[in-house]
């Protein structure tokens, strides 16, 4: 069974600080996606990375896929209250073209 572990589970920081969220597994994934989920809503796709070592930037967010395709990180620079939410990583399963499995999430709170 493929599992994705996210750390930390909870993070509360002051506005303007930087942070990194990690997503780790012992399994290899075909792709890695990051979603953000707000209360009462479904997850919203932020980015998909498909190549080992790939780095993508989305404004203040930087996403990296590990060289071995087993892990990923999300770095936020100068966090803002609008970044508050549940961040979920999800890995593409090789045995099934379109199946992804989710990590347990990191709940991020940015204090003004």
């Amino acid at each position, binding site marked *: 069974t493929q599992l*994705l572990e996210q750390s930390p589970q909870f993070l509360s920081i002051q506005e303007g600080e930087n942070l990194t969220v990690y997503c780790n597994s012992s399994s290899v994934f*075909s*792709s890695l*996606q990051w979603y953000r989920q707000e209360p*009462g*809503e*479904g*997850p*919203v*796709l932020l980015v*998909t990375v*498909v190549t080992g070592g790939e780095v993508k930037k989305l404004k203040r967010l930087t996403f990296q896929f590990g060289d071995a395709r087993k892990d990923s990180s999300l770095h936020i620079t100068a966090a803002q209250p609008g970044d508050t939410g549940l961040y*979920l990583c*999800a890995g*593409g*399963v090789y045995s*099934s*073209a*379109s*199946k*992804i*499995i*989710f*990590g*347990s*999430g990191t709940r991020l709170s940015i204090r003004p």
Partner: protein
Amino acid sequence: EAGVAQSPRYKIIEKRQSVAFWCNPISGHATLYWYQQILGQGPKLLIQFQNNGVVDDSQLPKDRFSAERLKGVDSTLKIQPAKLEDSAVYLCASSPRDSANYGYTFGSGTRLTVV
């Protein structure tokens, strides 16, 4: 483009009752998924459809859960009879192709409380 529509938004039922959820995916999206998200956890895949055929239902508790996707568009997920541990948010998602690389578009979910 319209998003993934789900209804109802909330449902409260007693254990052993039955309940049904409805999902209308983005027009033209061939692949549809139902996920269960228990409070404090990430979503867990229940069933995946490609057009109107089932691709993966390995994690669907088939003794009480059923799902269908008639004509390859709308889908319904049913629970009968419900148990307390079925309390969760049920999310529907769709994607344009049979590939994880395109990402999923999720609906807002149905929050089910079983009392």
